[in-house]
């Protein structure tokens, strides 16, 4: 494959359908088989010992990780030269998505294959990779990642852990304590961040058996009870100098880039979580009877199921699009190039906005879906015997780790504006175009078929996102970076534009492939999502501009008029569409798409 490079966030300025995106339906047989092996493994090996996992019975989760290693579930993303399979991101998405039946174990697995392995993969030198990657690939070593400290969570670079070169120059002596470290009690190798001489933020590859390395007791958590979360204590820990990861003082590069991948992987796992909740819920509502009929027959319950399916469709579309886009970009690189990994990282950085979107959208989608799942179960959803209870509790952490959703939200407009300043993305030009279109009128596109109106709506929503951002930037100029309320709102517009653009992109591609009558569910989900979201964004845009105008009625009036011109939403009847989504989901006893 020769690949294709798309500029990060370019979808914001590109008309719907102009760019072919990767869709889950395009996975090849091998990728599907990988996903199947993950599903088989989790349902046959992990789920039966779920209780033991939740009680953190000694060795259970770790042995399962090692067993997963034996059948290759830990090696997919690692290059062949280091004992892996060199698989691309779409393939690892399929794995992440399907390893989601037992949430606690999912977190252990995702931590190992994600932030536990990736720092060495992307930043390790040849010797480090040769030494650690084959063992991480096979499961002989369990991995972890220690960035957070008691005093530095979101403010990750404020770490206090200190590293000092030993007098003989052979070791760094580390002192400090890392907090909330996933796989903390089980890990054999941990990427630890510390400041050399209290100043230069740096990554270290730390083995659990190095002198001075230990872990604290397990935290008592709200959810993911079966995962390990401990402190990592470094007391005059002796780390050989050859275990410095990357360059001294360049630890932030590792921290942030690894999180970029971690964020999309988290999103991918959330897709699986949504599907599992739907499976448990539809089975339950078919069994349970009230007023002499199964819950499934009540319209109220059907609406919930439809909403769960719609959210899942959008989230799934997004994760595969991201993975495919990154794969396409990395495919443009020459694998034999000595700089290959470094250049791959550049690509990952290119899609930092998309990675943050995936994290925020995925984690919030799963929270919503799990919430609906509990609600459809009634009181039983609150009882531990029912799996949906666990999904609800487990889901909550996703909005907190790998960068809180607030931090991720602010990265989105922050990065976009920085790129616009550098002239990398033509936001300013687009704002000018919108201003003149407000005078001269907007051109409509004409795409044959049932989605034409939605295509135009999404195109307009893009313009709305750019317009309101422009309004705020024009008022606050460089100070916008400190106006969190506006940044968070801007993030919301951009996230939803990406969500809608992705959903309609996928559905249009499916229409072309299979014809309209074979895409009933996809069309229904797309239409409802776009209508609901545009209606919400419209309101949101007015509120946003009222906040910018700050009581200046004339200014608000001008913004309000513009908003009304840019986007118009006419409600559609969603009853039949939702009924169909629910019916198909109930029929299939799971996610029907």
């Amino acid at each position: 494959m020769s690949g294709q490079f798309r500029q990060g966030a370019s979808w914001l300025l590109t008309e719907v359908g102009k760019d072919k995106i990767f869709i889950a339906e395009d996975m090849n047989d091998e990728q599907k088989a990988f996903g199947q092996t993950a599903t088989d493994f989790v349902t046959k090996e992990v789920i039966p010992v779920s209780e033991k996992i939740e009680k953190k019975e000694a060795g259970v989760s770790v042995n399962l990780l090692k067993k997963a290693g034996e059948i290759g579930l830990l090696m997919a993303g690692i290059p062949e030269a280091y004992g892996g399979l060199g698989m691309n991101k779409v393939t690892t998405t399929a794995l992440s998505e399907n390893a989601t039946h037992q949430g606690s174990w999912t977190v252990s697995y995702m931590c190992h294959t994600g932030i536990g392995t990736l720092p060495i993969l992307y930043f390790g030198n040849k010797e480090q990779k040769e030494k650690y990657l084959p063992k991480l690939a096979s499961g002989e070593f369990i991995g972890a990642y220690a960035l957070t400290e008691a005093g530095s969570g979101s403010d990750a670079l404020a770490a206090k852990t200190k590293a000092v070169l030993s007098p003989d120059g052979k070791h760094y002596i580390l002192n400090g304590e890392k907090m909330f470290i996933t796989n903390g009690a089980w890990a054999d190798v941990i990427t630890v961040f510390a400041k050399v001489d209290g100043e230069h933020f740096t990554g270290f590859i730390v083995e659990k058996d190095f002198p001075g390395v230990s872990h604290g007791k397990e935290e008592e958590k709200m959810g993911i009870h079966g995962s390990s979360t401990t402190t990592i204590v470094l007391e005059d820990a002796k780390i050989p100098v050859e275990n410095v990861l990357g360059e001294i003082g360049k630890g932030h590069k590792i921290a942030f880039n690894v999180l970029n991948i971690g964020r999309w992987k988290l999103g991918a796992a959330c897709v699986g979580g949504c599907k599992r909740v739907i499976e448990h819920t539809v089975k339950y509502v078919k069994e349970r009877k009230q007023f002499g009929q199964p819950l499934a027959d009540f319209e109220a319950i059907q609406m919930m199921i439809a909403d769960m399916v719609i959210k899942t469709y959008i989230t799934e579309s997004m994760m595969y699009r991201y993975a495919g886009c990154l794969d396409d970009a990395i495919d443009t690189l020459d694998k034999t190039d000595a700089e290959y990994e470094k250049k791959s990282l550049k690509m990952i950085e290119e899609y930092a906005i998309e990675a943050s979107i995936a994290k925020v959208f995925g984690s919030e989608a799963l929270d919503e879906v799990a919430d609906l799942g509990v609600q459809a179960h009634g009181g039983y959803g609150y009882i531990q015997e029912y799996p949906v209870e666990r999904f609800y509790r487990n889901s909550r952490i996703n909005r907190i780790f790998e960068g809180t959703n607030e931090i991720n939200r602010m990265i989105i407009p922050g990065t976009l504006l920085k790129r616009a300043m550098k002239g990398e993305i033509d936001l300013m030009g687009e704002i000018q175009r919108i201003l003149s279109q407000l005078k001269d009128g907007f051109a409509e596109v004409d795409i044959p078929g049932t989605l034409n109106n939605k295509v135009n709506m999404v195109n307009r929503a893009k313009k709305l996102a750019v317009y309101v951002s422009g309004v705020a930037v024009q008022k606050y100029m460089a100070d916008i970076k400190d106006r969190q309320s506006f940044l968070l709102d801007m993030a919301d517009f951009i996230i939803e534009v990406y969500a809608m653009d992705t959903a309609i992109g996928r559905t249009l591609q499916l229409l072309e492939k299979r014809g309209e009558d074979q895409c009933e569910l996809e069309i229904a989900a797309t239409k409802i999502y776009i209508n609901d979201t545009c209606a919400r964004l419209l309101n949101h845009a007015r509120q946003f501009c009222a906040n910018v105008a700050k009581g200046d009625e004339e200014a608000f009036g001008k913004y309000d008029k513009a908003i009304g011109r840019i986007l118009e939403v006419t409600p559609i009847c969603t009853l039949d569409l939702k009924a169909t989504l629910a019916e198909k989901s109930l029929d299939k006893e799971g996610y029907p798409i």
Partner: protein
Amino acid sequence: MKIGVLVKQVPDTETKIKVLDDGSGIDENGVKFIVSPYDEFAIEEALKTKEANAGSEVTVASLGPSRCVESIRTALAMGCDKAIHIDDEGSGPDSYVTAKALAKVIGDQGFDVVFCGKQAIDDDMGQVPQLVAEFLAWPQVMILENLEISEGKAKATRRVSGGAKEVYELTLPAIFGCDKGLNTPRYASLPGIMKAKSKPVETLKISDLKGDANNKLEYSNFRMPPEKAPGKVLSGEVGDQVKELVRLLREEAKVL
């Protein structure tokens, strides 16, 4: 050794089976297909036999429509070496003709031993292996629980009803129908899945293999079984409940 495994592709055990509106068959739309679970034990036994006998080779044979190749790939990913897909050319399920075609393939391949599931979980006929054995004049042991092979001979244990066991000593070639409990099938590992891509799959046609055999079965109509009426829960004193139960069994269920 030349080892053969017969694999059938069947709907996933969790499939909600739906009958086509005109009753002409099963609606395959949206159905997920898998390797019949008993055949997984056969694949595992074949692989174990291969591992115990250096220089052996395992060939999978599957008869059915072209989608069967997915299941063949699963068997190859588990570790089988090569495969034969026998295209059923839309001929419809028929144990007799299926067995004729498979027997021809097995004979041509010159297998020393053949493994299969004790039955396929779709139509649960459980007669193809016995027919194949008959056509080849081979010994067969079904519902296999344990197997030892050495020097062209086999000692096979099978369960019979009532908890008893039968032990057979026989001379290869032979065919064995595998049951749950015989072994633990391995997973199609990720490296296995990748290797499976380049393993050879030969396609043959049923019409070239079945000779003059014709279908013995004719399918006239498919219907769903009638829905089960809900159960009754008795209440009250235990003594009264027993009396009521006996009465119901006699008068309503008419089984006493």
